[in-house]
């Protein structure tokens, strides 16, 4: 599964994209798994209410299932326009 990061999430984690092997069922499981792995993930995911997640380029939420998903994206609230 590809995991991509944008804006300050990317900066805290230190990379824009990685491919990981995971058996996480939901986005929240994936966040917990990454956070327990290394401090930089724990720092980036400390407050998920300040984060947004997209599954295969569609906005989703942290309860969503990862079944069949190819790309997970984490980023702060958008500030376009």
């Amino acid at each position, binding site marked *: 599964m590809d995991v*991509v990061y*944008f*804006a*300050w999430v*990317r900066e805290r984690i230190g990379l824009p994209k990685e491919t990981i092997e995971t058996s996480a069922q939901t986005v929240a499981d994936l966040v917990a798994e990454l956070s327990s792995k290394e401090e930089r993930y724990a720092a980036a995911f400390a407050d998920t209410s300040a984060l947004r997640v*997209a599954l295969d*380029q*569609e*906005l989703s939420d942290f309860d969503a299932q990862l079944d069949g998903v190819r*790309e997970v*994206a984490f*980023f*702060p*609230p*958008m*500030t*376009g*326009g």
Partner: protein
Amino acid sequence: MSVHVQEEPFDAGQVLNKFSAQQEGAGAVVSFTGIVRDVAAGLDHMEIEHYPAMTAKAIQAICDEARERWALTGVQVIHRYGKLSADDPIMMVLTASAHRADAFAAADFLMDYLKSRAPFWKKETTSEGADWVAAKDEDEDALSRWSRG
């Protein structure tokens, strides 16, 4: 309907004229241009990051929704990414309709959704350093204006 996500600058006036010329039966054309504002500490530049695989798709979905809600003869969105300076146009939304109410409502709607649902992030660099622009609660709140019961 056209969506442009681009690094290159654009000429807002040219875009408006070209868009208007393409409309059939429109009596009303509304344009919104977003411009990089200088900040208190003095803006050196702004950097806009986006999520290329998602951006055009997300904007397209917002435009589709606008066309479903209002009787529009056309919709166009241009959004830049990359490095910008104070006073540069960042983005532009154009709507056209037979009547002004539809064109205004659709442009207003598009702006609210683009602000909070299109995957762009702004970083401002001043003499004091670089900082990501924080999303405003009021931008998220603005979306509730458009919920359909």
